C-alpha cells in the first residue's frame, strides 16, 4: 500500500479556468480535501458533469472524469453505475444544467436511488452563456435576457430533490469550506443518491446573491446549522430557535438559552415532511438550513439490478449461447 493520498494528489495537471474569485474554487478544494481525508482511490472515482461553468469540474480532478452534454450527467452516471456498481461516482451540475434542461434526468435519477452523489452548484444565474436568469433566479430578476425582470417563479432545488424521493438531501455554502467538507464526507458515506445543493457565488454575473448566507457576520443569523438529534438553534449568540406552531415553523427568541419546546432535527425519519418544511424555510423570514436535511436508508437501483441478474443466473443457470440459439420451435432440414 502506497502512502495516503493528499489534496494535491487529486489535482489534475490542467490549469483551472474559472473566473478569479469564483465560488467554484472553494468547492473544488473542499472536494479534493474531503476525498483525500476519506482515503478513496483515484482509479475508482469518476466525476460526471453536464454543461456549464460547474461542469468543467471533472477536468480539474485527477480521477476518471466525463464532461458530457447539457443536463444529461445523471443519465451518463446511471450507465456507469449499472455497468460497474463498484465505482464511486459523483455528478457535478448547476442550477441551469440540473434544474432547467436536465430536470428530467435529475428527477428520475433521484427517484431510482442510484448510488451516486449529485453536487448542484446553485449560483442563481447562467454564467457560461454570460448572465441570463436561471431556474433558481428570484422573480423579477433583471438580466440581459430579461431587461424588464423575469416572470418565472424560482425552483427550490431541495424541494425538487425531496419530491423526487431523495434518500439524502443536504445543503452547504461555498464560503464555509470546513462545513462543506463535512457535508461532502456525509454524502460520500451515504448508500444511494445523495443530493447536495451548494450556494455558490458567481462573482461576475450574480455577485453576492447569497451574501446573507456567506458573509461571516451575517451567516449565524441567517443559517440554521442542522445537527441530528439536536434542537434547532441559530443566531450569533445561539439566541433563537425553531418551534412548531401547528403545521408551521416559527422563529422563537430563546429565554435565557432555554431550548425546551424547540424542534429537534431528525434526519433519519422516513416521512419527508420535516425535511420538506426545512427545505421551504427561506430568507429573510427564516434562517435557511444547512447540513443534512435527510438521510434515510433504501436499497439502491444497481444493487437491485444485480440481484435480479443473480436471481436469473441461479434460477436458469449461467446463460448458454447454444441453448439460446436452439430455444423456441426448431426443426431440422435434411
Amino acid at each position, binding site marked *: 500500500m502506497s502512502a495516503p493520498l493528499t489534496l494535491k494528489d487529486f489535482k489534475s495537471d490542467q490549469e483551472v479556468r474559472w473566473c478569479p474569485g469564483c465560488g467554484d474554487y472553494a468547492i473544488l478544494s473542499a472536494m479534493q480535501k474531503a476525498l483525500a481525508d476519506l482515503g478513496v482511490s*483515484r482509479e475508482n472515482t469518476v466525476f460526471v458533469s453536464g454543461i456549464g461553468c460547474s461542469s468543467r469540474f471533472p477536468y480539474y480532478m485527477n480521477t476518471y472524469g466525463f464532461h458530457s452534454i447539457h443536463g444529461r450527467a445523471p443519465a451518463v452516471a446511471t450507465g456507469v453505475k449499472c455497468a460497474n456498481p463498484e465505482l464511486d461516482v459523483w455528478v457535478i451540475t448547476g442550477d441551469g444544467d440540473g434544474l432547467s434542461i436536465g430536470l428530467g*434526468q435529475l428527477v428520475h435519477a433521484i427517484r431510482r436511488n442510484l448510488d451516486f452523489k449529485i453536487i448542484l452548484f446553485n449560483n442563481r444565474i447562467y454564467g457560461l452563456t454570460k448572465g441570463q436568469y436561471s431556474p433558481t433566479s428570484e422573480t423579477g430578476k433583471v438580466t440581459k435576457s430579461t431587461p424588464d425582470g423575469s416572470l418565472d417563479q424560482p425552483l427550490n432545488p431541495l424541494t425538487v430533490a425531496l419530491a423526487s424521493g431523495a434518500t439524502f438531501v443536504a445543503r452547504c455554502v461555498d464560503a464555509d469550506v470546513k462545513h462543506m467538507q463535512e457535508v461532502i464526507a456525509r454524502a460520500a458515506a451515504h448508500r444511494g443518491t445523495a443530493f447536495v445543493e451548494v450556494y455558490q457565488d458567481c462573482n461576475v454575473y450574480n455577485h453576492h446573491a447569497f451574501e446573507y448566507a456567506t458573509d461571516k457576520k451575517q451567516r449565524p443569523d441567517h443559517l440554521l446549522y442542522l445537527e441530528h438529534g439536536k434542537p434547532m438553534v441559530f443566531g450569533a449568540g445561539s439566541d433563537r430557535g425553531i418551534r412548531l406552531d401547528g403545521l408551521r415553523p416559527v422563529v422563537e427568541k430563546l429565554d435565557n438559552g432555554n431550548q425546551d419546546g424547540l424542534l429537534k432535527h431528525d434526519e433519519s425519519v422516513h416521512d419527508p415532511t420535516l425535511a420538506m418544511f426545512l427545505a421551504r424555510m427561506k430568507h429573510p423570514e427564516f434562517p435557511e438550513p444547512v447540513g443534512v436535511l435527510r438521510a434515510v436508508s433504501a436499497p439502491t437501483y444497481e444493487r437491485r439490478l444485480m440481484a435480479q441478474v443473480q436471481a436469473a443466473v441461479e434460477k436458469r443457470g449461467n446463460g448458454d449461447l447454444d441453448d439460446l*440459439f436452439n430455444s423456441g420451435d426448431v*426443426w431440422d432440414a435434411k
Partner: protein
Amino acid sequence: MKNPDTLEEAPAIDDSRIRLVDRVAIRFAGDSGDGMQLAGTQFTNTSAIFGNDVSTLPDFPAEIRAPAGTLAGVSGFQIQISSDDIFTPGDRIDALIAMNPAALKANLADLAGGGILIVNSDEFTPANLKRAGYAENPLESDLLADYRVHQIPITTHTVEAVKEAGLGSKESARCRNFYALGLVFWLYDRPLETTQNWIRRKFGKREDIARANELALHAGYNFGETAEMFALRYRVEPAKLPPGRYRNLTGNQALAIGLVAATRLAKKTLFYGSYPITPASDILHVLAGYKHFDVRTFQAEDEIAAVCSTIGAAYAGAIGVTASSGPGIALKQEAIGLAVMTELPIIVIDVQRGGPSTGLPTKTEQADLWQAIVGRNGECPVAVIAPMSPADCFEAAIEAVRIATRFMLPVMILSDGYIANSAEPWRVVKAADLAPIEIRHATNGGDFKPYQRDDHGSRPWAIPGTPGLEHRVGGLEKAAITGNVSYDPDNHQRMINQRADKIDRIAHEVPPQAVFGDTTGDLLIVTWGGTYGAARTATQRLQAQGASVSHAHLRWMNPFPANLGEVLGSFKHVLVCELNMGQLQTLIRGRYALDAEGLHKVKGRPFMVSEIVDAAERVLKAPSKSTGTHKSNGGVA
C-alpha cells in the same frame, strides 16, 4: 393423418383433392382484437416446422383498439410459404380470411383474381357494414364475382364447438381466430400439433380456455374436411433449405439474440438502455428476459437518457446498446455526437418507421438513412450497417459490435418496421463457430495518452477502475494524443480528419460489394435494408426473361464497400430502389458522380416485386446512355 388423441378421429383424407403448388400467399385480416397476428404467427411456425420457406408481413394499426369494425382497426398478417427460396411475403395474395366487413374492404384489392376468400358471415350485419362504409352487403352483390367466396358463420360455429369447455359467450366467441386457423390448416394440409402444443403451453393454467381453443381449432379443421365447400386443398412441399437446424426469427428477436451473442464473444456485459417506441420496443422486451446472460436492461425516462446511459456504460467498459425509431433517434443525435467525440463504442439501433414526426408508427419506411449518416451537428461520422432481412439482423448485430469496439465509435444499425416484425427461418449457428471479438483495454500506466491511436486509428479504451489511467473525456474538442481540451485550429482539423479516417478504414474491413448476376451489363438494381427480398426476386424474374440485369444489395451504408464505385460503373444503368424519396440515390450520385436513377415509394409498405420489375423494364427501354461516362467516373470517390 390423425387428430390428437384427446379429440375424435378425423376422417381419412382423400389425397386426390390435394393439389401440389410451389408457393401460396395467405392473409388473415380482422379487427385489432380478433387475434389475427396470433393466427398468422401460428400458421407461420407450423409451416416453417413443416419445412417450408416462409416470409411474413404483419400489418397492424397504431391504435391498440381502434373502434371495433372500422377500417382504422383492421389488423392483418400476410404470410407466403414456399417449397423453394423466397424473399418476400408475396405481392398478391392467394387467399384472404376476412373476419369482418372492414377487413374485407381494406384487403380485397390485394387478393388475386380467382383467389380464395373466406369471410365470417356472422359479422356482416347492417351495423358492421355501415362501420366499414359498405352501402350494400358485398356478399349479396357481384363485387366478389371474381373470387372463390366461402361464407362461413365462423362465430356461430365457434361458440357451438367450444360449448363443452364451459366458457361465457364472449370468451367462447373469442376463440374464432383458432377456428379460422384450423380451417386454413385444413385447406393447406398443415398438421395441428405445433399450434396444439402452443395452446397447452400458453393456456396451461386455464384449462377451460386451452380446451376451448383446441376445440375451436379442430372444429375449423373438421369443417373444412366435412363441409364439401372447398373443391380442392393445397399442399406446399418442404423447401430444400441447406441442411441444418432452423428456427423462425423476427428481425427484433434476431437483433436481441445477436447482441447477446456478440457480448459473449467479446467476453463483456451487455447494457441496454432504451425508451419504449414502436416498432423497436420488442428488443427491450426480449433482452429483459436474458438476465441470466448478465444482460442489464434499463428502461430510461426518455430517449436522451437512454442513449446517455448507454454512453456511460460504454465508458465503464460494457457493450452499450440503445434502440429507437426515427423520432427517438432525432432526440438521441446530440448524445451520439458525444460518443463520436469521446470515441466510445456504442450501438444505436434505428428501427425505421414512416415519418416525418410521429408519422406512421406501425408502418415501414427507409427514410432515416440521411438522419443516420449525416443527421448530427458538426462533422460527425458514425458507421452504419443495414441488415437485409430478419435473420440477417443476427449477423448485423455481431458485426456492429465488432466494428464499434475495434474502431472506438458508434455504429448505427438501420433496421425497419418490416424487418423488425417479419419472420423468416434462421439457420441456427453453433456458438463455437462464431469468431471471438477481441477487446483490448488499455492497461499501461505511467505515460498514458488517452488519444494515442493504434494501427486502426483507434484510441485506447481505458475503463474506470484501472489504476494509473485516470483521464478526462468530454464533448469539447480533444487535443490529439493527450486528449486535453484544445481550441487549436490545426488540432481541430487534424481530429476531424482522424475521426473520418476511422470510417474510411472500415471500408477495408468489411466484405467487398457482391453482385448477384453478371458484373457488367445493362442494368444494376441497387438496394439496401429490407428491400432486399423484393429486389432479389425481381432480379431473378428479369434474368429468367433474358434481361441483362444484376442486383447489388448494400449492407454497409457508411462507409460504402471500397469497390462500390467500380461495381456501379460497370453497368449502363443504375437503378436505386428504396422506400424513401431518393436518399441512397443522392448519396451515390454525390459520391460517385454517376447518373443513378431511382424508384421511390413511401406508402408505409414494402416494395412489391412487380413494382421493381416494372421500373427496371422502364429503365431498360429508355434510350441507352453512354457507358463510357459511367465507367470513367465509376471509381471517383
